[in-house]
């Protein structure tokens, strides 16, 4: 392929493979990671090959192929890749790996993890402080353990700032169904929720549409989504997967690449909330308002300092 040819020409160039566990598409998360890696590759003059996998079995195969093709660094991501990476990295101790968003405890693997629950806590807190109806909703892609990081954190934040608030959760049952997500948001709105957070991957677009239609407020995930519709999408929970990919390659470039776990939370600025941890191009919506932002900022400091503990729903 084209990569081999360029590799042959400039053999001094370092080569990095980004093996994604699924296709770039419905999950903005992987797109972002790809962008971060691309940025680093450009900056450090690396050859980057992004390999998308079609299913679970393909992950292992792609990892093995990447090892066989002697990439200098292989980055992969997510829980789905854990088993495959354990196998492949275990069998190839001289190959350097990095994994984003989960932990693999091997001497040649650098793990980057996120404490999304902390950001979710802030979002929940902001919701609790902003709601007028004392009803807050969340439309979640699926009822799976992973997504508890979002729901549980959110609920804790909500209860902390507004114990009276009722929390509505509905599950779409799919990552690719904006139509159903929209209906669920409409349903929650009809029950009186005035803030409904999206956590349904591409379904969030459906939630945003519902918000526009029924005039409630909503929030997005991973990147700053407020620009989609500033009048209704008033917040966004952030997750710096691009930074994670970028930092990993930077560490590799700087020679500080080490095995072990790097955890990104509020403290490390790896996760966050628009207006609270990061400014946004769109002006703050009056539904939230500066006083709320200030209160949430204080909460953020409490979490960073350890005064407030957010439950990790996946911890035993």
């Amino acid at each position, binding site marked *: *392929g*084209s*990569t*081999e040819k360029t590799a042959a020409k400039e053999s001094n160039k370092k080569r990095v493979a980004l093996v994604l566990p699924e*296709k770039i598409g419905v999950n903005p998360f992987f797109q972002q990671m790809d962008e971060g890696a691309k940025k680093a590759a450009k900056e450090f003059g690396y050859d980057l*090959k992004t*390999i*998308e*996998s*079609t*299913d*679970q*079995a*393909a992950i*292992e*195969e*792609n990892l*093995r*192929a*990447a090892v*066989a*093709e002697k990439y200098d660094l292989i980055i992969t991501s997510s*829980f*789905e890749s*854990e*088993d495959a990476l354990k196998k492949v990295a275990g*069998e190839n101790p001289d190959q350097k790996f990095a994994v984003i968003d*989960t*932990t693999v405890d091997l001497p040649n693997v650098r793990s980057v993890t996120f404490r999304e629950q902390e950001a979710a806590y802030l979002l929940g807190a902001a919701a609790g402080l902003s709601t007028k109806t004392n009803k807050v909703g969340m439309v979640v892609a699926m*009822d*799976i*353990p*992973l997504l508890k*990081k979002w729901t549980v954190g959110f609920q804790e934040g909500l209860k902390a700032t507004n114990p009276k608030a009722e929390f509505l959760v509905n599950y779409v049952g799919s990552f690719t169904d904006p139509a159903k997500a929209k209906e669920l948001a409409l349903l929650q709105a009809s029950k009186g929720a005035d803030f409904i957070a999206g956590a349904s991957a591409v379904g969030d677009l459906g939630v945003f549409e519902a918000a526009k239609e029924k005039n409630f407020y909503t929030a997005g995930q991973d990147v700053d989504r407020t620009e989609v519709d500033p009048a209704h999408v008033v917040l966004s929970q952030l997750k710096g997967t691009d930074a994670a990919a970028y930092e990993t390659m930077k560490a590799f470039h700087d020679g500080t690449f080490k095995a072990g776990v790097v955890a990104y939370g509020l403290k490390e600025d790896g996760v966050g909330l628009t207006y609270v941890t990061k400014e946004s191009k769109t002006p703050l919506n009056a539904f939230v308002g500066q006083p709320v932002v200030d209160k949430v900022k204080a909460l953020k400091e409490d979490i960073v300092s350890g005064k407030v503990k957010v439950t990790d729903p*996946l*911890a*035993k």
Partner: protein
Amino acid sequence: MKRGNEHIQAILQPLAAVLLGLLVGAAAMKLVDAPVLDTYIQLWNGAFGNLYFVSSTMARATPILLIALGVGFAFRAGVFNLGGEGQMVLGAVAAALTALYLPGNGMGKVLLAAVAGFTVGGGWSVFAGWMESRFKVQLIISTLLLNYIAVLFASYLVSKPFQDKTGSAALAQTKMLDPASRIPKLFTGMTVHGGFIVAIVLAILLFVLLRYSKTGYEVNMLGKNASFAEYGGVNRPKLLLLTMFVSGGLAGLAGSFEVLGSQYRFVDNALTVPGYAWTGVMAALLANSNPLGTVAASILLSALQTGAMGVERNTEVPLEIASVIQAVLILFISAKVSFSFIKSKKEGKSNGTSV
């Protein structure tokens, strides 16, 4: 004279089909400015380029083949079992739980786990067969519906009571099987495992069974005219249930082997996302339910998938184009392979509840 012609056609036509399919694929690639020859080379290499890729192709063919054998067997008996997915998933869960929680160890346990997978997959399938023979609930719909129930139930099991809490606990999956309760790989460092051999042996067994055995004869007659079979003394409900048990059992085995030989645990969605079940249905139908033909069809379909991964890794051709080429090839092959079977298929599909 007529027969000789047919034989030559049976070989030439799929070849012509593949060629035509490749040509159309090439046209599609030209449209997006992709390097045609290089893409095809990568497609081939990804599937058969070296021993490792051959082994991956075989590994992927294993569940497809087992499901296809099951679908084909039921099809021979005149019923359309579209429930491969559910049967596979339940079989996989059963095998995983058996291997995890049954005391003892070693090959004996692996065998028991596989048997459990077969039995549960078969049992789930028999349920549809029973509704068909006892209450005339059309099997083709009930199996389709039972898929959803089975997949949801398995998902429930591994996200609630049997979830693996030892690792990050972020996924709905069971615990990892310990190395003693796994099906060994055929070659170290390669993905293909003992299940592939078993699947091939089962294909040969089924071929012999259908071609030469008494039961095979009865199954064939049941499929070609159920009333005739009944009139001839075949116990229709019993044979239908047996067929469905074997059919679903093979799907259950497909799931079990994935758990015991590839993934070493049951992971929610890991068996449904790759679409093994529908690929299996295609393999069976492409081969006109002939078990040996099914082996070839399964390897072909698997190769198209592993080959597409090779294209993804080594070219800049977008992944979607690979799936378009796959679909085009399948369309052409389906047209031609069945061309030599026109008569038998056209008239043969109308029995039982196959719509």
